[in-house]
């Protein structure tokens, strides 16, 4: 894969082909937590804005190391391309070493998006677990920029410990808004933490939404998404109004290689965002 990618010397060609990464320069790196960081990127050639839909992802290529799918975490109205990544393995750890001025190859945007249009006139509940907050952020930004078109908007966010909370400053700003309810909980707290402790599913009953007219968007580990979905259904939310973003290892990102196959669907092109009934039966089959 790497050698094919490195063949891309013609930059016009690079921008045009979904299999060839386009070089982007890191404008800013922000450390969110000990293992998670946010990069802001601009195309090396030209100043064109990076158009994408909330929920979509890019394939990020760390030259000479490898390529990984990462959701876009920036505001769709923003001027730079933003990704927030947790360093877990070879590629993401190499990416964490990059600094301002370094170059990353980008292919994308790929995949399906959050149903922000369908959510109009409804209560919207976002549920994020761990590194699930970045993929939801663009949809939340988009909804907040057209706030009058939506009912109640709630963000429920669960992390492992208080020091794993991402976007701390922005969460404070969101919390200060009267038209957005933010609930945060952690699985494990150290002494001195005065916030909530418990799994994110326990926040659902606190959210006070109109279950008959609610759309839920959920991202996190699969077990967390499964229990969250069950809790929404228990509370009367229509399964058709529950959306999840799924993760599988990827290679091509465009439905060619079959690497991300999940039963009959390809996460890269049929997802990553799915309506719950589309993947309901697959989620309980752990061997897939």
């Amino acid at each position, binding site marked *: 894969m790497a050698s094919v990618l490195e063949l891309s010397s013609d930059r016009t060609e690079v921008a045009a082909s979904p299999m060839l990464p386009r070089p982007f320069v890191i404008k800013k790196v922000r450390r969110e937590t000990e*293992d998670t960081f946010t990069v802001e990127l601009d195309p090396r050639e030209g100043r064109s804005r990076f158009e994408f839909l909330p929920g979509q992802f890019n394939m990020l290529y760390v030259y000479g190391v490898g390529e990984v799918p990462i959701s876009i975490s920036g505001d769709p109205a923003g001027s730079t391309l933003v990704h927030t990544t*947790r360093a*877990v393995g070879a590629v993401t750890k190499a990416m964490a070493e990059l600094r301002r001025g370094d170059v990353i190859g980008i292919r994308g945007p790929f995949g399906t998006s959050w149903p922000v249009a369908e959510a109009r006139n409804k209560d919207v509940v976002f549920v994020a*677990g*761990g*590194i699930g907050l970045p993929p939801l952020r663009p949809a939340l930004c988009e909804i907040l920029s057209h706030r009058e078109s939506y009912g109640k908007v709630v963000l429920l966010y*669960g*992390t*492992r410990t208080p020091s*794993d909370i991402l976007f701390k400053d922005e969460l404070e700003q969101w919390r200060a808004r009267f038209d957005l309810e933010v609930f945060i*909980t952690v*699985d*494990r*707290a*150290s*002494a*001195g*933490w*005065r*916030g*909530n*402790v*418990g*799994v994110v*599913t*326990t926040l659902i*009953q*606190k959210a006070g939404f109109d279950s008959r007219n609610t759309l839920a968007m959920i991202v*996190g*580990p699969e*077990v*967390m998404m499964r*229990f969250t979905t069950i809790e929404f259904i228990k509370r009367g939310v229509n399964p058709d109004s529950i959306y999840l973003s799924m993760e599988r290892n990827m290679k091509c990102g465009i439905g060619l290689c079959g690497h991300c196959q999940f039963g009959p669907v390809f996460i890269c092109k049929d997802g990553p965002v799915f309506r719950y009934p589309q993947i309901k039966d697959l989620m309980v089959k752990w061997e897939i």
Partner: protein
Amino acid sequence: METLERILAQHQFFKDLSPEYLTLVTGCASNVRFEQDQNIFRVGDEANQFYLIREGRIALQLFSPDRGHITVETLSEGDILGWSWLIPPYYYVFDAKVLDVTRAIALDGKCLRRKCEEDHNLGYELLKRFSSLLEHRLETTRLQLLDLYGVRS
């Protein structure tokens, strides 16, 4: 008393409890208020009450000499605090510390235990409700223990 009965009747926990039993339970209920940082109960205290939280936030904590007061769970509006009143030897096993000023309805466990012994149908109704609460707490505790957000190995 009438208001208390109405509040209890509207709470999910007492949903579908017969009016007769509701009146009986209300006889063991009272309104309470706790200030920030107050301890509602401590580990080892006799467990004679449980609470329906109407407003506020409470931390269930354990003290560890090397880590201090560790919160294992927080409870807030709509939650039930305390089930040790139901299970011998009736001692609390956590500290309950008030994080935000809390209003609750306290239910006298001793009084309820006596009524449950006298009327096993009432006992069954309450046990059904507490079993479901315990099942839910066990499920969420298990999820908490799974360390879902950790890096996969």
